[in-house]
């Protein structure tokens, strides 16, 4: 008996092989979840429909995986042929059996004691390509592991953690390369997106998100401020195989809340970059928040949508931005197609014809504090929005909340915080949350499902007519048509993660990390 128990996972693992073509065609095998967002579109939409509006009320816990250490658990699992790959605090990668939930292997990388992070020992997942698992570790190393054993194949240092660099996002496998972003936007780093040869770990290209002196765009920074301007890339981007374009968002300019020392638009902070994944060359860029002084990163995973707008087919890339505005861009040219606020915002009178926000006076941080909607956390944040081709709606988990923004000193010292101020809670009004369904071309609100508190967790839609999401410590399902609540589960700890779904032995499961555990649900 014992012999058999050992053999089964070994046999399952031997089958792990995910060539690029499988990820490109991920929609053909919805039983797996092959990349961070499920497929390259960023839609986080599953074609699985075994769990649907009629039976979701019967969803029960199938198994639970407890994390080894207590820190924020943000993983978005990747599932390949019976094996689930997750990342876990403080700096772990694990392979779990989807059948039993038991751990097949664990990879642990020790964290340097002097590592400085803005926001906890978090990580959002891995990439899988061929027979390897790729992990961007907290200390800004990219690591390739054998998918069958978790043994190290190669490891490269992307940047020195001592200068405030780190990594928290899941890499993206595109063709023969592993593409990854980095974090450290509160430490005055200079942001980049890197590509590495998947087999050898040799760097293929680096795109600096802030142009160097003499390069186009460098004149959007005052003096040498570009050298410490942040614009990090800490959430996974998306890829359009048809046009061979990589789309990746960038974060806040540094210092966060004091723009006096970096006058100008500060390209390419808070920007969507369209890059050639073979060369790292820029195709176009669209800056959502020029000269941001509120820390409204635009790193959220954008969504590629083949929409029909005014009766015409239109390929767009959509994003409900942390700054409170929804944007639809033409994904070939980066031109603004449509957009509007999707939450209460008080810093802009709207978007002009090119999609540039028209900033209102007296909304910048001040020493005494400036009250602005939205709060530091934004209208939404790094967690996933979702698009359902079934309903043609874009769903976002929103925060309705204000913040009081303070300006402070900005003094750069390598490896130390470089913020120039901060944000305090606004006590005058209780914040709340909602799942909002938006029309993809304009961001017009179709309906909302109101939530008690501002959420900090992602959404997923399915062909079962469902949207899964979280609020506080509750995981729930609502009807994708009208937001009607259909099912909920008390996870017993705050949920700050994105859901996924997969099939195992003919049965659909839904997964969410909540508190310090990973919950897997199936129909009873």
């Amino acid at each position, binding site marked *: 008996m014992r012999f058999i128990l050992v053999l089964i996972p070994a046999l399952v693992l031997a089958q792990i092989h995910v060539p690029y073509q499988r990820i490109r065609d991920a929609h053909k095998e919805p039983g797996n979840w092959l990349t961070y967002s499920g497929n390259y579109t960023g839609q986080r939409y599953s074609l699985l429909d075994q769990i649907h509006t009629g039976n979701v009320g019967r969803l029960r816990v199938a198994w639970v995986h407890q994390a080894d250490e207590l820190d*924020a658990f943000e993983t978005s699992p990747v599932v390949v042929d019976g094996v689930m790959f997750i990342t876990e605090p403080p700096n772990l990668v694990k392979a779990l059996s989807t059948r039993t939930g038991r751990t097949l292997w664990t990879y642990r990388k020790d964290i340097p004691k002097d590592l*400085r*992070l*803005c*926001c*906890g020992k*978090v990580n959002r997942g891995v990439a899988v390509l061929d027979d390897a698992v790729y992990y961007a570790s907290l200390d800004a190393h990219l690591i390739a592991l054998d998918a069958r054993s978790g043994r190290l194949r190669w490891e490269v240092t992307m940047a020195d953690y001592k200068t405030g660099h780190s990594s928290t996002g899941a890499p993206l496998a595109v063709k023969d390369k592993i593409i990854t972003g980095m*974090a450290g*936007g*509160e430490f005055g780093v200079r942001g980049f997106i890197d590509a590495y040869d998947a087999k050898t770990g040799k760097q293929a290209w680096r795109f600096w998100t802030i142009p160097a002196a003499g390069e186009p765009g460098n004149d959007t920074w005052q003096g040498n401020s570009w050298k410490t301007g942040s614009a990090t890339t*800490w959430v996974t981007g998306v890829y359009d195989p048809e046009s061979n374009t990589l789309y990746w968002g960038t*974060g*806040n300019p540094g210092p*966060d*809340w004091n723009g006096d020392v970096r006058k100008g638009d500060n390209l390419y902070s808070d920007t969507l970059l369209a890059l050639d994944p073979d060369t790292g060359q820029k195709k176009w860029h669209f800056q959502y928040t020029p000269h941001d002084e509120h*820390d409204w*990163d635009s790193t959220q995973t954008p969504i590629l949508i083949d929409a029909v707008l005014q009766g015409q087919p239109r390929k767009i890339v959509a994003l409900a931005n942390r700054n409170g505005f929804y944007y639809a861009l033409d994904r070939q040219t980066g031109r603004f197609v449509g957009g509007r606020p999707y939450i209460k915002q008080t810093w802009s009178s709207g978007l002009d014809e090119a999609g540039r926000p028209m900033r209102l006076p007296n909304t910048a941080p001040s*020493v*005494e*504090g400036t009250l602005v909607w939205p*709060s*530091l*956390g934004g209208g939404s*944040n*790094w967690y996933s929005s979702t698009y359902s081709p079934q309903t043609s709606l874009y769903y976002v988990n929103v925060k309705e909340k204000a913040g*009081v923004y*303070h300006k*402070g*000193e*900005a*003094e750069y010292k390598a490896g*130390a*915080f470089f*913020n120039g*101020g*901060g944000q*305090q*809670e606004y*006590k005058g009004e209780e914040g709340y*949350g909602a799942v909002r369904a938006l029309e993809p071309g304009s961001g017009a609100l179709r309906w909302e499902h109101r*939530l*008690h*508190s501002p959420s*900090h967790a992602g959404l997923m839609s399915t062909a079962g007519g469902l949207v899964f999401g979280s*609020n*506080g*410590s*509750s995981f*729930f399902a609502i009807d994708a048509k009208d937001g009607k609540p259909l099912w*909920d589960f*008390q996870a017993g700890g*705050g949920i*700050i993660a994105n859901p996924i779904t997969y099939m195992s032995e003919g049965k659909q499961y839904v997964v969410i990390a909540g508190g310090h555990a990973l919950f897997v649900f199936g129909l009873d």
Partner: protein
Amino acid sequence: MRKAAFLLLAGVVFGADEPAKIKLPTRRDDLARGEKLFGAYCALCHGTKGGGGRGPILATPKLKRAPDDAALVKVVEDGIQGTEMPGAWHMTPREIRQVSAFVRGLGRVPDKPVPGDIARGSQLYQAKGGCAACHTVQGKGGLMGPDLTSAGLRRSAAFLREAILNPEAELPDRFLQVRVVPHQGSPITGIRLGEDSFTIQVRDFSDNLHSFWKRDLKDIHKDHGRSPMPAYKDKFSDAELTDLVAYLASLREEK
């Protein structure tokens, strides 16, 4: 950056200076800047003049956790683990010294005792006031109101006096009186202990605990700004009030 939920949990340690070298600024502009920073980041919990609130009183000659300037700077820099006091990750070293200097200035007040008879105040608390029906001191008493075991550490005598006279002037943090009406069964009035999108938890006025699915409720009424505590304006004489405040101000046990 992503922050939001983890902002206060970052617990980042700045490069600490040698304690012996700490010298807080004394120039007027530094203190003015320290006051502004205090207003921005500290007053929310410690009160605008350091009179206390969610955090302890700072307008006192001796700070238990910060007996000297080096310790004070360290508390501001690093926060206090295991408490709600966060580290000042957003301030530069100079700003930390400026705000520390301002805090030290708040403590330059005479260390005079609160007037009144503590023993008599204690009797009034137990008997005439009936305070123990709703408040706990050192593990004894009711659960409806805030625990007063360390009231003297957290609130000034002036604040305590005002709270007795006019309880609804400033309610405790996150304190909310609610009335929930189930589809079946009697309505429950009490204090909200917790709430999320799907449930609400209430302690009723007899200290019974309730937790409801919202789908089982007909109505949830929230009495924002209301307190079940009666105003004691006409109940106590001025002298009695002074004694009661003296007693409450003497409650200084760290929880």
